Every structure is written in structure tokens, then in C-alpha cells.
């Protein structure tokens, strides 16, 4: 009888090790799945048995802090050039935030200048989406370990006057890599660089100034431009106006995390139909699947004859096409064929 606890402890020891463990780019790294992958190996995703425990850095997104941060967001466009947006993020640390565009350098321009009214209006409309879906957020420990190989880069850097550590995070499935710059003291994510599967920089964010005791008097906090509600399932179809299609495929590592209804018809009438957004998250990045209803329902014609539009906008890739009366689009930074397979899977009934 006394041996039973010992046996239980021996059985649980590997589990505890896998919970605490992770892999670095060293010998403990697990092989990625799929022979077609740049990181092809003989195993599937997840940790190799016996992988050394590796503490993943903890970090929080800026909008969770009381701060005023000036940042430079740089994004590649469809032609391969880069545009730069200077923005100011203000947050009260209680969930409210505002993202303001204060400068814009179009592709080919020599320097950052004042933004146009159109761009200011776009930022005002998009700010909540940009902060929630464009900016990086730390997901679950399991997804971070499952989907990425972590490596802390040597030395420390200074960003916005803050001492920071840098981490190179490589996607296990060959989807690219991300470089994170994290404030050592606050564990605040101050910068990141997203690269695609070829190593090309897609987008980056750099905090250039940071004020942790800002005067937020008079700040107009962001608010949804149209009512946004969680989508709970068929019970919400009458409100949404159509039944969203389900996914039957997602790029490796991406899990569905939320579904929302954006009820634009309540503000803009039928000129902008309501749409459904499903968010997939892999621990760091998001893929958005947008579906917009139209007149009529049903699956429509055979998928084999459907024209599917593929558009590489530089920082983001888009797959769009009609499925019956619905317009469905899939957006993200994963390889185009992964996004396309995801789109195609929604047409399966």
C-alpha cells in the first residue's frame, strides 16, 4: 500500500515535467509536422518527450496599463513597399483606450507627415479592431508552447527609454516568426516584428515614447461604431439575419476563440449588411473569418465553379468569395494556401 503513492508520483512526474517544460531552439525543440513544412520532421506538434522545461516570458498588452504611448506601426503594402503610421495609444488601465493617428508616411514618401482626414477617420473607425486583432496578445501557455519555438536573444535593448528583453518566436509549422520586445520591469509588450514564411517583414510596431502617468483629461475613449454582440449560435440567427457557415479546416495551431455579430444595419441600414466575425488565435496572432449575409439563403452553386479571390495586401492576406448568398472572407498572415483551405472548408455542408 505504501508503494501506491510512489507509483502515482512516478506516473505524474512526466506530466508535471511537460507542464513546466517547453522547448527552446536547442536540442529540446520538438519537430514540426508535415513533410511540406519548412520545419518538417517526423513528429507532430507539441513537445518532445523529455524536452527541457523553458520558462516562457510573460507579457501584457499596452491597453491593459495606465499609459500614453507613442508608437510607429510599419506595414508592407501589396507592392512590397512600406507605409508608416505614427499613432498614440492612451489607456486608463481599466479597459478603456483610444488609438489616435498622428502621422502618416505613405509608401515612397521621404518622411512622416500629418495624416489626411480620410486616414484619421479610418483610424477612428478601426481603432478597436486594430488594438484587439492587429496587435499581439499573449494566448494560453499551451498554445504558445504547442505552436512556437521560443528563444531569448542575448543582451538587452532599450525601447522608449525602457530596458527590455527580446525574444525570437518561430512558428513550428513554417508560418513565419515574430520578434518580441518586452519591458523587463513591467512585462509590457513594447514592440514586435512579424515575418512571413519567407522571412520577409510583414509588419512591426515600435514604441518610441512612454508616459506611465499621463493626464487623460478630455480623452474620448473608443466605442464600437456599430453594436457588437457575441454570437451565441442559432438563437442569434434572427438578429444576425442569416446562419453563419461553420469551419471544417483551420491552419495548424489556430483555435476558434470567439464569434461576434457586428450589427451594422442598426446604424447604416441595408447599405452595410450585418456581418459575423469568427476569430481564430494561435497564441499570438489572429485570423479573422468574416461572413456577410445577403438576400436568399442556402449553399448556392457547386464550389468547383466558384471564383475565389486571393489578395496579398502585404501585411495581411485575404481570401474572399461567395458561398450561396453569403460573402465569406478569411484574413490573416498565415500562408495563402492555408487561408484558402480555411475558406474552402466553410463551403462544406
Amino acid at each position, binding site marked *: 500500500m505504501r508503494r501506491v503513492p510512489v507509483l502515482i508520483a512516478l506516473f505524474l512526474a512526466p*506530466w508535471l515535467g511537460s507542464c513546466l517544460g517547453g522547448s527552446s531552439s536547442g536540442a529540446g525543440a520538438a519537430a514540426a509536422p508535415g513533410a511540406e513544412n519548412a520545419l518538417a520532421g517526423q513528429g507532430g506538434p507539441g513537445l518532445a*518527450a523529455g524536452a527541457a522545461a523553458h520558462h516562457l516570458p510573460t507579457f501584457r498588452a499596452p491597453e491593459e496599463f495606465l499609459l500614453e504611448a507613442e508608437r510607429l506601426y510599419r506595414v508592407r503594402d501589396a507592392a512590397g513597399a512600406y*507605409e508608416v503610421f505614427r499613432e498614440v495609444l492612451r489607456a486608463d488601465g481599466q479597459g478603456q483606450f483610444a488609438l489616435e493617428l498622428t502621422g502618416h508616411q505613405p509608401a515612397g514618401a521621404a518622411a512622416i507627415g500629418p495624416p489626411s482626414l480620410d486616414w484619421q477617420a479610418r483610424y477612428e473607425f478601426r481603432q478597436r479592431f486594430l488594438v484587439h*486583432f492587429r496587435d499581439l496578445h499573449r494566448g494560453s501557455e499551451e498554445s504558445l508552447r504547442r505552436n512556437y519555438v521560443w528563444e531569448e536573444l542575448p543582451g538587452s535593448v532599450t525601447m522608449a527609454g525602457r530596458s527590455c528583453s527580446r525574444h525570437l518566436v518561430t512558428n513550428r509549422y513554417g508560418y513565419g516568426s515574430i520578434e518580441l520586445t518586452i519591458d523587463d520591469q513591467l512585462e509590457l509588450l513594447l514592440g514586435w516584428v512579424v515575418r512571413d514564411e519567407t522571412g520577409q517583414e510583414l509588419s512591426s510596431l515600435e514604441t518610441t515614447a512612454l508616459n506611465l502617468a499621463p493626464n487623460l483629461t478630455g480623452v474620448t475613449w473608443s466605442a464600437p461604431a456599430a453594436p457588437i454582440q457575441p454570437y451565441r449560435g442559432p438563437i442569434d440567427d434572427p438578429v444576425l439575419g442569416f446562419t453563419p457557415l461553420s469551419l471544417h479546416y*483551420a491552419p495548424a495551431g489556430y483555435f476558434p476563440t470567439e464569434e461576434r455579430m457586428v450589427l451594422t444595419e442598426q446604424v447604416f441600414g441595408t447599405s452595410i449588411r450585418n456581418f459575423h466575425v469568427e476569430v481564430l488565435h494561435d497564441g499570438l496572432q489572429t485570423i479573422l473569418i468574416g461572413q456577410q449575409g445577403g438576400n436568399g439563403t442556402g449553399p448556392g452553386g457547386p464550389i468547383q465553379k466558384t471564383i475565389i479571390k486571393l489578395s496579398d495586401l502585404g501585411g495581411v492576406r485575404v481570401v474572399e468569395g461567395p458561398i450561396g448568398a453569403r460573402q465569406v472572407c478569411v484574413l490573416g498572415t498565415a500562408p495563402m494556401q492555408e487561408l484558402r483551405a480555411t475558406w474552402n472548408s466553410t463551403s462544406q455542408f
Partner: protein
Amino acid sequence: MERHPEPAALPKSLEESLRRLGGVQAPEELWHRVALSISKPAEAPDELWRRVEPEVRAVARPRPILRFRRVAAAAAAVAVFALGFLLAGRDRPSPTDPVFAYAERPELRDRFLEQGIAIQVGEEQLSPTARMLAGARGAATEGSL
């Protein structure tokens, strides 16, 4: 008669408690313990050694290190440990998850890719909603919003 060093004096309260016991006789075992504690080691007589020697030799006989019960217990521990490792290493998603399970099957993805007719387009040929969502996701799109 040999003299023994004077024992330390008992605490007063203990002495009084013992006196209150009156004529109660101490158990014989107590006397044996006391006698043993004050006795000095002495060599046993040869005759006693001759009587106990066979028994002592039998007890001291070397035993095999690898007894079956110890081997079985060690093997069971190793098996349990190895099984735990194997199961812990299978850090995989639930196969019942319809979305994630498919992501690990490239043949399914390739089957989806065979369907439909895909064409490359520019930003201006996307729908306003797609351009808006792309902009919200961080693309430098000049959609209406």
C-alpha cells in the same frame, strides 16, 4: 560490591508522586531496564558462543541482490514512469475537435485546395467589407472605413 556514581536527584514533584504510590510494586521489566542501563558490557562465556554460533552463521549468510520481488517492483516502477512519459509526450489536441484535428492532416487541406477557381486580385476588387476587415487587421487599405 561495586560502587556506582550517585544518580542525579529526582525532581521534588516526581519524588512526591512516587512516594504517594505507597506499596505499589514496580513491574519486573522496569527492574530489568534499570539493571541494563547501569550494567557494564561483559564478554559472554565461550560456552554461550558455541551454543549460538550456528544460528548466527545462518542469519549472516549472503543473500542474492536480485530477489524476484525487488526486480518486479523496480520493473513496475520503470514501466509506470515510461508510460507516463509516453502519454505526457502526446501533447496533442483532442481528435474530437472538428477544426483543429483537420489542421494536422495535409491531405485534407490539399483536398480543399482542389476546389474552386482561385484568381489573384488587387485590393480594389475586394468587397468593401473585406477591405474594411483587412484594414482592421492592420493592412494599409484605403477602404471606405
